[in-house]
């Protein structure tokens, strides 16, 4: 049984590109590595060797000067063995025979008292080619990037004498990974990322305000950072800071909130997305663990997580960090909870198929179910209709970040920019608001879904259990009743 599974897989993947040969300068040959992996994993239910060779270049301009140029290399491997629901992981930055043998011994020692029932090394293979394997660091010279950051600084400072501080950065990552399964199946991918961020501070009298915006993705540098793109990012950062100059204290209490489209999807990500991750399903720790098939929201609401979304999205991967193909997963269909996001472990423990959501921050981390690009489908209302329908509330046109407690579903968000709504009309800017609620309430309390779905601009970072991965998200404008925390009763 175990043997035949290995034989079936004993064909080298056609996606192997050998862009970085981890075994070239090592005393460990590919064949030896495969033998150690086989010997270790044949007695386990699942596992793999994950190798990573990545370089991040970042350049930061601050206070009118280039403050930091840095170039960081991350290199190493992690071996994972899984039996039943027990995971053993061992990683090191040394790719050598001894290191792999040590890792193997460590895993065997953790798992020695657990018996494998079924060794499964089959993978749902991917045919995706969602991004080019170019090197985003070399796409522009360092000189050009430095020059561009100075241009950004001048552009933002020329917009108003009240602009007192500008910070801008360009970060590019070249990441090459390889996954080796028992049986020798090998999967490799090169995952480029580029991002650009601008933050400003404005000061009027004793009042300080901030604005920050960014863009990025797995695309060619010039497609993200051309003149019209970087100016758009700057304009949005400026708009946020400028609007807050005359902002009043935000009101506190329960009220209607109209969220703008795009980045407000972070609310969906925190309040709903995390609670639908498969590890919380088999641990029964999410409040939705026994709600599959039930109506958990009104029928305007359909939520998707799609790891193979085209167009250089940050959350997109040709295959996930367990080599499973990424795909479009419907989580909530017209208000009904229909699925969770799984890695191989949570899929096996809940008798589901993997959904391509097994992700990890780096070789130093074991994979777990994570979101990719998470968004809500369009409804029928225009944003104007929503604002018109609100007697007293706020319109949020820039949401900050947030977090959620999976068990209770309680979440919170900071609001970067908002305006009061009174009797259907937009009024003055308000600042210092926080939005809170519980995930199960908020999806019930979304009363109007807009027809203007937009994905975010490409700067989402998501943290879970100490691991950070980049994600995409999106939402149409929405009207929802929730608690706003301001400093005015």
């Amino acid at each position: 049984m175990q043997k035949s599974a290995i034989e079936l897989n004993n064909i080298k993947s056609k996606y192997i590109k050998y862009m970085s040969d981890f075994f070239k300068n090592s005393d460990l040959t590919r064949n030896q590595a495969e033998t150690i992996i086989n010997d270790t994993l044949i007695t386990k239910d699942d596992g793999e060797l994950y190798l990573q060779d990545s370089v991040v270049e970042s350049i930061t301009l601050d206070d009118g000067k280039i403050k930091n140029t840095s170039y960081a290399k991350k290199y190493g491997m992690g071996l994972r063995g899984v039996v039943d629901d027990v995971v053993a992981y061992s990683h090191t930055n040394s790719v050598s025979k001894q290191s792999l043998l040590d890792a193997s011994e460590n895993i065997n020692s953790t798992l020695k008292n657990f018996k494998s029932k079924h060794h499964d090394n089959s993978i749902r293979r991917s045919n995706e080619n969602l991004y080019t394997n170019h090197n985003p660091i070399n796409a522009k010279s360092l000189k050009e990037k430095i020059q561009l950051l100075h241009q950004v600084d001048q552009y933002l400072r020329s917009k108003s004498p009240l602009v007192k501080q500008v910070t801008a950065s360009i970060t590019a990552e070249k990441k090459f990974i390889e996954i080796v399964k028992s049986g020798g199946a090998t999967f490799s991918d090169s995952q480029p990322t580029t991002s650009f961020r601008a933050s400003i501070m404005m000061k009027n009298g004793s009042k300080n305000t901030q604005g920050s915006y960014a863009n990025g993705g797995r695309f060619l540098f010039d497609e993200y950072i051309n003149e019209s793109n970087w100016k758009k990012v700057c304009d949005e950062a400026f708009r946020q800071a400028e609007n807050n100059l005359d902002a009043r204290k935000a009101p506190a209490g329960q009220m209607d909130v109209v969220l703008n489209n795009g980045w407000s999807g972070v609310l969906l990500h925190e309040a709903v997305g995390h609670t639908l991750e498969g590890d919380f399903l088999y641990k029964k720790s999410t409040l939705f663990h026994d709600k599959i098939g039930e109506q958990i929201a009104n029928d305007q609401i359909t939520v998707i997580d799609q790891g193979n979304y085209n167009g250089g999205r940050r959350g997109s991967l040709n295959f996930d960090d367990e080599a499973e193909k990424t795909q479009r997963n419907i989580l909530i269909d017209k208000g009904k909870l229909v699925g969770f996001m799984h890695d191989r472990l949570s899929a096996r423990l809940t008798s589901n198929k993997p959904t391509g959501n097994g992700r990890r921050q780096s070789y130093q981390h074991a994979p777990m179910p994570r979101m990719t690009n998470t968004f809500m489908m369009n409804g029928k209302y225009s944003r104007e209709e929503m604002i018109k329908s609100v007697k007293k509330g706020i319109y949020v046109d820039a949401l900050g970040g947030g977090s959620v407690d999976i068990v209770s579903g309680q979440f919170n968000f900071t609001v970067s920019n908002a305006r009061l709504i009174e009797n259907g009309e937009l009024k003055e800017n308000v600042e210092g608001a926080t939005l809170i609620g519980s995930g199960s309430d908020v999806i019930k309390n979304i009363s109007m879904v807009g027809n203007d779905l937009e994905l975010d601009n490409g700067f989402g970072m998501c943290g879970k259990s100490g691991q950070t991965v980049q994600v995409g998200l999106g939402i149409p404008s929405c009207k929802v009743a929730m608690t706003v925390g301001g400093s005015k009763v």
Partner: protein
Amino acid sequence: MLKNKKFLEEQASYCVDRLINKLGATDCEVVVANAVSETIEFRNKKIESSDRSDTLAIGVTSYIGKRKSSTSLSYIDKKNTDMMLEKVIEVTKITPEDQFNELPDKELLIKDYDDLLLFDESEINNQEKIKYLKEVEEEALSNDGIIKTNSSSFSQSKTNFIFQNSLGLSTGYKNSSFSYYTDLLAKKNGSGTERDYEYDSKAFINELMKPNELGKIAAERAIRKLNPKKIKTQSIPIMFEPRIANSLLSTLSSAISGSSFARGTSFLKEKLNKKIFSNDIDIIDDPRIKKSMYSKPFDDEGVSSEKIYLVKDGVLKNLKLGSYYSKMLNMKSNGRSSGLTNTYFTNGKKSCEELKKSLSKYILVTETMGGFGNTTTGEFSCGAAGVYYENGDSYSINNFTLGGKLEDMFMNLVLADDLKFKYSKNSPTALIQEGLIVGGQ
């Protein structure tokens, strides 16, 4: 096995020598660190996962005149190190000059210092880690209302590092940490599920809180949260538990950084040597506490750090300074380039009970969500959960917000006398009688 001092020194010297003598750097700083850690996660009477990590990393900052750049790399081999050193020099040459880019003044660098006892030779193997976590879980489950462990883990981490710079400084030490926590789920008589946690982390294994004590505290906290009610929007005295009150020190730490003063982005920018708290408040940062895992006799630029008052009698006395921003501000680095170390409020005059008795109603905040104030705008806003007290009656509350201004919170802060050292930032129970608005229904 943790790499020994000699091996790390060889790597560091190699980089310094190469940068200065072969590649044309005028100055440099190199840190070589080896970290080995082992973690066990435990749930429902059995191990959930094991993780072993062994990394050797090199961090390099190179200077060519007033040009500066940095690189970090996972150590692979000499050839790869050479390549990265060449790269950092190439980038340094292109990076524009900045007059404040230079190594710290030589007289500020660390010389001799007392052994702070930061390394415990003990090895806690995985079986022993499991024993700790088992005991925690058994104690927790013996409390009526605790249904299971959401997650728990025990980590042992050991690090050895060497720091060298081109002024001839070569120093470093080993440190260790042993940490464990449990996060529990509570549910009782048809209530919803709530969770809460407790953790402890020490440089020496025998200083850790006992597992039954840790399990008991976590259980009591989770049970205390059951059946939460909602509250109305109002203005009411707010009391923060020590584990929340210490966030005030994190917020202060970011507001008094050299960078936020030099760049003008702190709401406290004009407040050096001025009153920001009431007369009763003192805040100390002490990098030299023995056996504390947060102690650092020198910072990541090799600058010696001593015990200082950040706030004395309510007046802001010192900033958090590294060498770059201290030069920009025309001040001297106080060895805080890698941040504050053991930071604490000194005790207030009244006991927690006395403070509580003086109030007819108040909220005890036991949990906050989101940031703890914006140090540029000075605005404070977050989500919270806690306990509502009124005339001897009390109940759990959640899903409310706190909003106000940091300036008012600082000025109105009153501290109890129950300070304990547990975290890097430590506070007694804190009371803010006026200035915070509770947002609810």
